[in-house]
C-alpha cells in the first residue's frame, strides 16, 4: 500500500495516508519495501528479531509499519555499526526490554 500524493509543488506537498485499519504487508511486500531479500526477512523472523507474533511457523507472517521500521533499523545497525548476526538477537531483545520497561514506568507513574 502506498500513500497518495494529491498535491505537489516545489514547497508544499499534501499527502494522505489511505483510510482504514493499520497497513499490513506480506513477506514479499515488506522485503521489497525494505530493499531486502525475502529470505533474509524470513531469517530475521526465525531468529525472533521482530517479536514472537511474527515467528508463528503455521502462519503467513504479516508486517505492519512498526515491523518495517524494525527491519530497516536492523539493516542500518548491521551496515553502519558492524553489528553481527550473533549480536542482533541480543540487541533486539534489549530494545524490546527498554520499550517494555518504559511502558511499565509510565503505567506505574499513573495518570
Amino acid at each position, binding site marked *: 500500500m*502506498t*500513500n497518495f500524493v494529491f498535491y505537489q509543488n*516545489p*514547497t*508544499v*506537498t*499534501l*499527502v*494522505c*495516508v*489511505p*483510510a*482504514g*485499519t*493499520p*497497513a499490513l504487508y506480506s513477506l514479499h511486500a515488506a522485503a*521489497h*519495501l*525494505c*530493499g*531486502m531479500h525475502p529470505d533474509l526477512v524470513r531469517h530475521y523472523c526465525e531468529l525472533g528479531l521482530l517479536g514472537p507474533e511474527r515467528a508463528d511457523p503455521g502462519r503467513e507472517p504479516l508486517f*505492519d*509499519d*512498526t515491523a*518495517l*521500521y524494525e527491519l*530497516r*533499523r536492523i*539493516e*542500518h545497525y548491521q*551496515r*553502519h555499526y558492524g553489528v553481527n548476526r550473533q549480536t542482533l538477537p541480543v540487541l533486539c531483545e534489549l530494545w524490546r526490554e527498554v*520499550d517494555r520497561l518504559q*511502558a511499565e514506568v*509510565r*503505567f506505574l*507513574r*499513573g*495518570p
Partner: protein
Amino acid sequence: MAVKFQDYYETLGVPRTASADEIKQAFRKLARLHHPDVAKNKVAGEAKFKEINEAYEVLGDPDKRKKYDELGADWQDGAGHAAARGGSRGRARAPGGESDFEFGGTGFSDFFESFFSGRQGGFASAGGPRARGHEDDGDFAQPGRDIEADLLVTLEEAFRGSTRKVTLRRPGMDGAEERTNTYQVKIPAGMREGQRIRLAGQGGPGLGGAAAGDLYLRVRFARHPDLNVKDDDLYFDLDLAPWEAVLGTKAKIPTLGAPTTVRVAPGTAAGTQLRVRGQGLTREDGSRGDLYAVVRIQVPATVTKDEQLLWEKLAAASAFNPRKSS
C-alpha cells in the same frame, strides 16, 4: 533556528518548588478541564490539552524535570540556549547532522522536540529496489534517511481513529529553497503506544538516484486525566470512603465513551480490581480489552466532633483487627 522556551511550570500553574504530587494534581485538574471531549471550544481545548500534556511529560518525570530545571536556570541568564542545544541532539537529526527538520502539528512544541524527545535520529535504510539497482551498477547512490517524529495522540483518538495535519519543514540542501510539506495523516483506530505510521518516501532524499527514505511517526499516548493504559486494558483509580467500602455502593466511573456505573460489593478491600468488560482499547481481532476500577480507600483529613464520636463508637464496638497475623 529559534526555539521558543516554554515555561512548563506556568503551563501547569505550579511553583518551581512543587512536589511530584502537586504537579500530578495540577495536571489532572487542568486535563479534566481542557480534555477535548469536555471543553466547550474543541480546537482551543485540544491545543491546551496537548500543552498541558507536554508540560506533564517533562515535569512528571523526575529525570526530565531535573534536566529542565537546569536548562531553565540557564535560560534566564540568556546564555544557556546555544550551549544546551549544542550539547543535546538536534531535532529529527539524521546522523551526519547536515539537516535540521522541523515538525509542526505533532502535538509537541519545538522546544520539547529539541530537548526532550526520546527518539533516536533517523537512519539510512537499505534503500528500496531502485537504490539496489544503482549499487549493482557501481554508481554512487545513497538511499535517503528515514526520519522519525513523535505524534501525541489522545486515548480517544487512538480508540476511534482520527486524522491529523502534520507539517515538516525541510532545510534546503545545496542552496535549494527550504520546503514545507503538509501531511494529512490518518491515525487508524486501535493504534498503540510506540507503534509507527509510515509515510513512504517522505524521509530524506536519496543521492545519485537512490530512493528517498521514509517518514515514521511514532505514536505517543497523551496522558488521560483519569484513565491509565496497560496493553489492551484501562485502569481507573476508584476512590471510596471507608464506609462505602464496608457497606458497598454504586460508583460512576469514566470510560472512553459515556460514563458507566460499577457496583462495589460490601466489604471491598483496597486494591480490589473491579472489571468492566469490553471497555478497554480495541484489540487486533476487533474485540476490546477491559476497564479496571482499582479501589483506593480515602480517609477524611479532618473530622467534626460528631464524626469523631461515631468513629470512637465504632472502634469500641468492632472486633475487627487488620493485623491479625502480627
